[in-house]
């Protein structure tokens, strides 16, 4: 790499430097909100360097292409929305700000590296950077036991999955003599699918499945999502998951593409199992936060269909789905944060009883997000699912699309149950008092508008994803 290629790495460098700045800013900045604002400005500055960043450096170790840029766009938006919904929450939980935002930015940096990784070494390091930041963020509310427990579970299982990932990388390295994803692909095209090769594929598949929470490697998700601070849950269910999909797509659809016929059946099995587990267990939940955790598992099961279908069509459908999922999911979590106050969790289904009477606007927004998560037109969720199904049908997996539709129908039960609780039940006890803030309102507004906008006018997003993958 020459110094002139530095522009390719500029977004990452800027993000790292600004994350350090945010970390230190708490020493000089008194007002907490300003730190959050600084984080948002940092994202904007980083995003500024994105358009000029296209290129491949370090012998293909770092790739900035349309694919990675789309994912970085998701990460940035996710980070901004998370910062917006965090400030009020941190106040309620009485936690410090500087490290929180800095760790969020480091996690995002890790995700950016994952999306751009052209080499398994960079991929591993990016993944660890993200994961380590997230372990800390999950346990950020130190005085709360649930947060500790979630953090511990996440950490131990995460480290376990990293070890499995490393074993997989080792196996791939043994078979191909390289860790470069493109070279792996070209070496594999000339090789027969031996058992040891398939073993390495499985190790990688398991490790990535853990990151995107495919069953049966999903089991950390509900516990961690429930125990983590809600703002972090919102972040985790979107950004890191998208990053997991980014590496899954890159490694499996580029590096391991020659073995496609071997891993597709496995991924289909995992996808169906994931949809089943996510949807069926979500029905059982009384806590909306935990229900959303299971729902995020189910949605990962849907999104994987994009990778199964493969090709421009499938990958762009998967990317769009993740983008859409971000808005509807962060929106739903924002409502949960809105319900949270000093001595009130506001996570139980019963807390939503009669919300339409006491807080019609909040209920209306929740209705929108629930509809979108269910996939009811004209919300964005419908568009996301539609293109996934279309990709599946186009790739010859009509039956898989039908299975997915059935599971979506089941999912309507628990999403619409929230709506029924809000609209058809009378409020119980004293009215829920909302703890809104301008930034939370802004996050809700952005999410709601985009859920509607993508639902009504999806073509720019669809064609954007098609172009960057094409």
């Amino acid at each position, binding site marked *: 790499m020459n110094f002139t290629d530095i522009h390719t790495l500029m977004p990452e460098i800027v993000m790292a430097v600004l994350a350090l700045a945010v970390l230190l800013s708490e020493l000089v900045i008194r007002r907490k909100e300003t730190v959050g604002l600084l984080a948002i400005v940092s994202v904007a500055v980083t995003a500024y360097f994105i358009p000029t960043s296209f290129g491949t450096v370090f012998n293909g170790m770092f790739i900035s292409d349309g694919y990675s840029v789309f994912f970085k766009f998701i990460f940035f938006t996710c980070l901004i929305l998370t910062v917006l919904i965090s400030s009020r929450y941190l106040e309620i939980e009485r936690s410090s700000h500087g490290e929180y935002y800095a760790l969020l930015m480091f996690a995002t940096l890790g995700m950016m590296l994952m999306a751009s990784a052209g080499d398994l*070494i960079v991929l*591993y*390091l990016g993944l*660890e950077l993200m994961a*380590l930041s997230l*372990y*800390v963020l999950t*346990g950020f509310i*130190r*005085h*709360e*036991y*649930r947060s*500790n*427990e*979630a*953090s*511990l*579970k996440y*950490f*131990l299982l995460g*480290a*376990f999955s*990293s*070890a499995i990932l*490393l*074993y997989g*990388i*080792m196996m791939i*390295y*043994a078979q191909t*003599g*390289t*860790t470069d994803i493109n070279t792996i692909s070209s070496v594999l095209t000339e090789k027969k699918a031996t058992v040891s090769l398939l073993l390495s594929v499985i190790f990688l598949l398991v490790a990535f499945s853990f990151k995107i929470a495919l069953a049966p490697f999903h089991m950390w998700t*509900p*516990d*961690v999502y*429930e*125990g983590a601070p809600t703002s972090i849950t919102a972040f985790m269910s979107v950004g890191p998951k998208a990053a997991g999909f980014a590496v899954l797509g890159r490694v499996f659809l580029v590096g391991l593409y020659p073995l496609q016929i071997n891993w597709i059946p496995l991924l289909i099995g995992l996808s169906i199992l994931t949809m089943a587990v996510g949807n069926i267990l979500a029905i*059982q*939940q009384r806590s909306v936060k*935990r229900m959303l955790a299971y729902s995020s598992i189910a949605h990962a099961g849907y999104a994987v269909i994009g990778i199964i279908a493969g090709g421009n069509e499938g990958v762009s459908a998967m990317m769009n789905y993740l983008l859409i999922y971000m808005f509807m999911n962060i929106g739903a979590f924002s409502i949960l944060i809105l319900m949270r106050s000093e001595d009130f969790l506001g996570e139980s289904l019963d807390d939503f009883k009669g919300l339409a009477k006491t807080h019609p606007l909040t209920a209306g927004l929740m209705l929108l997000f629930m509809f979108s998560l269910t996939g009811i037109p004209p919300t964005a969720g419908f568009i996301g699912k539609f293109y996934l199904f279309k990709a599946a049908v186009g790739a010859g997996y009509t039956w898989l699309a039908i299975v997915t539709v059935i599971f979506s129908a089941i999912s309507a039960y628990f999403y619409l149950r929230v709506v029924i609780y809000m609209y058809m039940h009378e409020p119980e006890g004293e009215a829920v008092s909302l703890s809104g803030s301008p930034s939370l309102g802004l996050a809700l507004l952005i999410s709601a508008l985009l859920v509607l906008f993508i639902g009504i006018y999806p073509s720019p997003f669809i064609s954007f994803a098609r172009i960057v993958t094409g």
Partner: protein
Amino acid sequence: MIPLHWYLWLGSIVFCIGIFGFLAKRNIIIMFLSIELMLNGVNISLVALSHYMQDLRGEILVFFIIAVAAAEAAIGLAIVVSLFRNRTSPHVDEIRELKG
């Protein structure tokens, strides 16, 4: 010359002992130590592969794995410490408030 697969066997044995420790031990700290065992298994295999392939990648990856392991240890043990502030049990089967 020692055959390459001896090293790989050694690595896989250590790796699997690590998995067993992780699955079977009740003490979180020993579980964590087991993960270090798994990493060492991977490291042995990687160094051997690297040596036999006459390529540095594997060794470089090992270097990074050790660095990350150090970072993981710091964070993991900090999590354990903050957990012990609220509960004193080191036994993983007593840490189960979040479930269902």
